[in-house]
Each structure stands twice: as C-alpha cells, then as structure tokens.
C-alpha cells in the first residue's frame, strides 16, 4: 500500500494532491525548482526536495532527478499531476522500472493515447466515431498546404503532443498556415524535442464535451459523467461545468458508453478523460484521451461526491472501484472558472509578478484550489493557471449565482486576470440559456460587453473613488512615498476627539 507519494509537479495541483494525502495519512513529498522555494506546495508537503533551476527542462521535466529523489527519500509512488511529465510515457516506464508506483496509466497505454494517429486508428476499430480529417502525420509544410487545399480552409493545425489546447492553431489561408506550422513545430520541439503535426477540418460552432473515466487493474471501467468545457480562448478551456446543458441521461448513457469503450480500446488504467466535440446537430466525435487527472476534475468531484485523487491512489494500490456505473448519479451542478494570470485585453497574454494581496472567496458550495497567498510570485517559467474557483448548486442557476458572488469576492493584486471577464460571461443571457460553443467569446462579442461592464462598474464606483482620493490628499499625500519605501505600516493620527 502506498505510504509516501512524491508529487512531480508544482502549483495548485501539487497542493490538491497534498490535501488528499493529508486526509489519508499518506506522507507527501514536494519537489521544487529554484524559482519555487517560496511556493505553497513546498510549505505544505511533509518533505520537500530541490530538483534544479527554474526552466522546466532542468527541474520539473528532469525525470532522472525526480526518480532519484523519490528513491532516496523513500517514496513508494509518484503522482504526476497534469502537464509536465504527466503524459510522458518514458517517465511512466522509468517509474515502473524503478519499482515506483506511477499513479496513472502504463507507459504503453499512454503512448497509444499520446499518438493521436494510432489512437484514432484504435478508436475506429472500437467503433468510436472520430473527427473527419487528415489520414496521418504531416511532416512538411508543403504537405500540410496540399491537405488544407484539399479539405478546404479553415483548417486546424494540431500537434500530436501537447494537449490542453496547446499546439492547436486555426488557420484561414496559406500564409497563416505557413506561419503557424513554423511556430507549432518550434513549440513542440522546445517542449518535446520533436514535432509531429496533423491537419483536421475545422468544425464551426462546436462544443467541447468530455467524459471523466476511471478504470482499475481488474478491468472495471466507469465514466463519471460529462463536463462541458466549451468556453475557451485560444483553444484553452476557461470555464467548465458538469452536467452539460445539452446532455440528458439518455445521451450521457450513450456517449458515456462510447467513452468507456475508448478507455478499454487503449487498455487505460486509472483516472482519465475522453474528449469529444459535439456539433450543433448533436453528433459527438471523439478527439482524444487525456491520460491524466484534468485541471477541471473538481466539477466532477462536486457532482459525484468522489475524491478523484483518492480514487487514483486506490486504483494504483490495486483496489477495485468501489462502485458500479449504475451507482453513480449526477448530484446538482458544478461550474469552474480558471483563474489564469493573463491580460484579457492583450489577447490573454501572460501577466507575471508578485502578488501583493489576494482575497480568496469562501462560502457554501464554494471551493478554491490555488497556490496564491499574499507575497507569493507568479512565475513566467510555468503556466498561467494560478487557481480554480469552483461552485456547486442544487441546479445550474444556484451554482451560477454562487459563482457570481464568489467572483466578486475574489481579489488578486499584482497580475492581470480574467475575473471581470467571467463576471460578464456568467451574466450573459447566452451563458444562462446554455448556448455554448468554443467560439463563444467571439460569437457574442463578449470582450466588447466586458468593456462596457467595466465602464459601468467604474462609473458606479467613481463617487467612492473620489472620496478615497479626497482622503488621500487630506491625510496621506506626503506620507505615502517615504513609508512605502521603508515598508512601514503605520496607523494614522486622526483626530480622536
């Protein structure tokens, strides 16, 4: 039985895993780069080991160093989180070789999931419908141009590696495709040492709906409902929810069974996700299996009542799933907003730096997974996900209302973030009516509405701001500079008569 888990990750997901370890009495081991010596996962773990300099390649992607650390500190298992080494089949193999219990699928299964072309073939064999598109990997930009010409623009340029939306580019013409091909190759080479791209027909107004899966070592397989993840920017998810407004129990049973078949087709182990695209006419196409715990797993935890990390550990321990498909029922509705460090109005460009202040919301049905604390740093070396705000309600409307309240209470000082954008989205009649699609932001000109909302809000607060400015000029004007420099917090001497 697993007694000590090394978490080969950082940020909110490392903290998430530590929390379950603590509850189960399992020792947790954090690893950290020079950049993360002050990070919360280091502070929370039972033990923490330094593994290298800031660039991921020299620390969080350094598999030998991580395995060596696990062995020398006596960890018996490794949880990879998401990103980094989580879907690296070589790492899974290395763990197995070193007798470390890798909490995830086998290297072999991971390779099959990761190779989108082989995976597609396996799905076709298992009668799981897939997206119409190019037959295999496209090595040369000229070949990509030929295919695009054949199936017609716009097309999607995708990387066999990547996932989570990275390495996916929509291109409208030859020029864009050339530029995108070069960039995508570069990114892929930088991250994975090699490039392998393919082309797929662009499908308009699609929804992204995925099914949470779990499979134990005894072959028991279930899906734990769907998540609707259609609100995206640049093909990366922003808002996720479960259940989906367009999935009823009949569709859930039907597509859920396809997801289970897909899982069995790649001999998957542990928790994973089968991603589907859904067209406006109700057609579902399998796109890929994410061979890891997803960022958005908390929405499934809320509606299923399960602790998915605990489930992962139990499966890794060889236990049988403690339930059957029929035991699982959707309870209420959960929504997640990803709290990314990025500037909505700069095309979601990264925003990094020190967090001077943060207020984390709380309340009935509110959960926040985050690494933020006042004084921490959002590093440019790692991804922009600072945290996740998840709310649950008996129904969609209650979850939405709680999300709105929690968003208003969420304050982050130091980096740009999308909280105002989420407030605009959650207020929109289209979101409320469930008219979702991956081009939601463009289709409803959400950024224009956001600008108008921000103006309205500024106008509402202008009198209060004026009062604050008056106070400043009356009491603080000459003091701020000098005191800020010395970092002194002082109490003002107001009249006490």
């Amino acid at each position: 039985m697993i007694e000590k888990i090394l978490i080969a990750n950082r940020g909110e997901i490392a903290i998430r895993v530590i929390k379950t370890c603590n509850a189960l009495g399992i020792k947790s081991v954090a690893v950290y780069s020079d950049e993360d010596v002050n990070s919360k996962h280091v502070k929370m773990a039972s033990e923490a080991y330094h593994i290298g300099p800031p660039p991921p390649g020299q620390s969080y992607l350094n598999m030998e160093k991580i395995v060596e650390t696990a062995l020398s500190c006596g960890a018996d298992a490794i949880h990879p989180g998401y990103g980094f080494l989580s879907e690296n089949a070589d790492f899974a193999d290395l763990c197995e070789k070193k007798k470390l219990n890798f909490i995830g699928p086998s290297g072999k299964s991971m390779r099959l999931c990761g190779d989108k072309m082989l995976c597609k073939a396996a799905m076709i064999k298992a009668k799981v419908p897939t997206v119409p598109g190019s037959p295999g990997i496209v090595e040369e930009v000229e070949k990509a141009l030929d295919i695009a010409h054949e199936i017609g623009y716009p097309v999607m340029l995708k990387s066999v590696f990547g996932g989570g939306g990275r390495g996916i580019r929509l291109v409208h013409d030859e020029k864009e495709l050339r530029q995108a091909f070069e960039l995508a190759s570069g990114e892929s080479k930088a991250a994975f040492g090699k490039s392998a791209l393919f082309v797929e027909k662009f499908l308009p107004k699609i929804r992204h709906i995925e099914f949470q899966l779990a499979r134990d070592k005894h072959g028991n397989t279930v899906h734990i409902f769907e998540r609707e993840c259609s609100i995206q920017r640049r093909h990366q998810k922003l808002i996720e929810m479960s259940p989906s407004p367009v999935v009823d129990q009949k569709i859930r049973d039907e597509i859920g069974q396809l997801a289970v078949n897909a899982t069995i087709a790649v001999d998957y182990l542990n928790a994973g996700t089968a991603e589907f695209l859904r067209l406006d006419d109700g057609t579902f196409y399998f796109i890929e299996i994410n061979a890891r715990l997803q960022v958005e797993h908390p929405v499934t935890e809320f509606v299923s009542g399960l602790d998915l990390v605990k489930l992962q550990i139990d499966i890794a321990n060889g236990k049988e799933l403690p339930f059957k498909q029929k035991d699982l029922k959707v309870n209420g509705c959960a929504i997640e907003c990803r709290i990314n460090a990025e500037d909505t109005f700069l095309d979601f460009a990264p925003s990094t730096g020190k967090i001077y202040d943060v207020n984390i919301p709380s309340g009935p049905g509110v959960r926040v997974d985050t690494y933020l604390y006042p004084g921490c740093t959002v590093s440019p070396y790692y991804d922009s996900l600072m945290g996740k705000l998840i709310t649950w309600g008996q129904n969609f409307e209650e979850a939405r209302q709680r999300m709105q309240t929690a968003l208003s209470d969420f304050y982050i000082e130091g980096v740009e973030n999308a909280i105002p954008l989420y407030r605009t989205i959650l207020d929109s009649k289209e979101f409320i009516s469930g008219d979702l699609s991956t081009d939601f932001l463009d289709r409803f000109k959400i950024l224009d509405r956001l600008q108008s909302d921000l103006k309205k809000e500024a106008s509402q607060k202008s009198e209060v701001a004026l009062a604050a400015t008056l106070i400043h000029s009356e009491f603080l004007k000459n003091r701020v500079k000098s005191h800020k420099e010395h970092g002194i917090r002082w109490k003002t001497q107001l009249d006490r008569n």
Partner: protein
Amino acid sequence: MKFKLENTDETLEGAFVKSLGNNEFIIKIKNSERNLKIIDMSYDKIEFMLDNSFHTTKYLETSTSKITVVVDGVKLTFNKRPDLDKIVYKNSGMESATDSQVSLKSQIPGRVVSINVSQGDNVKKGDVVCVLESMKMQVSIKSHKDGLIKSLKVKQGASVAKNDVLAEIE
C-alpha cells in the same frame, strides 16, 4: 478636486467640508453632502463608511499627476492635473500603439525565442518581428505599423520585461 469619466460627459467634483470629530467628516460630492467615517487607515489602504456603506480602498500608485486606486476590487486611475482630469479604465484595451510611435514595445514579459527580421528590413503592420516565450506559450510580436526596422533592441535568448523596447520602426 474635479475630474471627468472618460468617454462620458459625467464630471465629478468633491471637497472636504468639515470634521465632525471621531474620524467622521462631511464631504461634498457632486454638490451633495455625504457622511464619511474613516474606520482604519494605513499607508496604502483605507477602510471607510461613505454614508452607510463600507468601502475598502487601496492606493496602488500615487504621484503628483495621478493616483490609481482599487475601490472594492475595482481599479480606477485619476489624472490629477486639471487639464487632464479623467478616469482611465483598467483593461480598457484602448492604449494600443499608434502609427506615430517609433518603438515597438513588448506587452508581456518573456524570453526571446526568435527574431524574424533584420535591421533595415521593410515590414508591414502585422508582420511578425520576433517571438517571445512566456508561461509555456510562444507569442508572436507583430509590427504595429508599416515601416523600416531602424534598430533591434533585443537578442535571441534574452529576457525582456513588460514595456521593454524590442525594435524601433520608422
């Protein structure tokens, strides 16, 4: 004090009227008297009741010409010089570079992955000048206008901060 909300005709004017003692004051906003009670005050943060509502304000940046405050989580900037009194919206996305600017600045922090032009090249607005990497993403930095690359200010592999000049384009 007087200032204007950008893009609207609303003008705001305010002043301290008198102290009531016990940290309570009468102030005037838009010609109506309001009760102000200061609850707590430190060098960069004030908590106060305006009439009967509690507010928290943080002063993010203060200089002689402008003040940026966060009021109950909403960020506002006032220009204090009378001729420039206005509120500039956070996230307004309205401060993009114009044709008259020479400098192409980085709007994000990052590492220079590649430089796609050379000194003396002619570029069109939208052409990729260089590629930055930040937070595992590669971001193309595009020319903000048609022109000639006068000079390149960064090298491949270098780190740039937000607002660093990447190139000068004339």
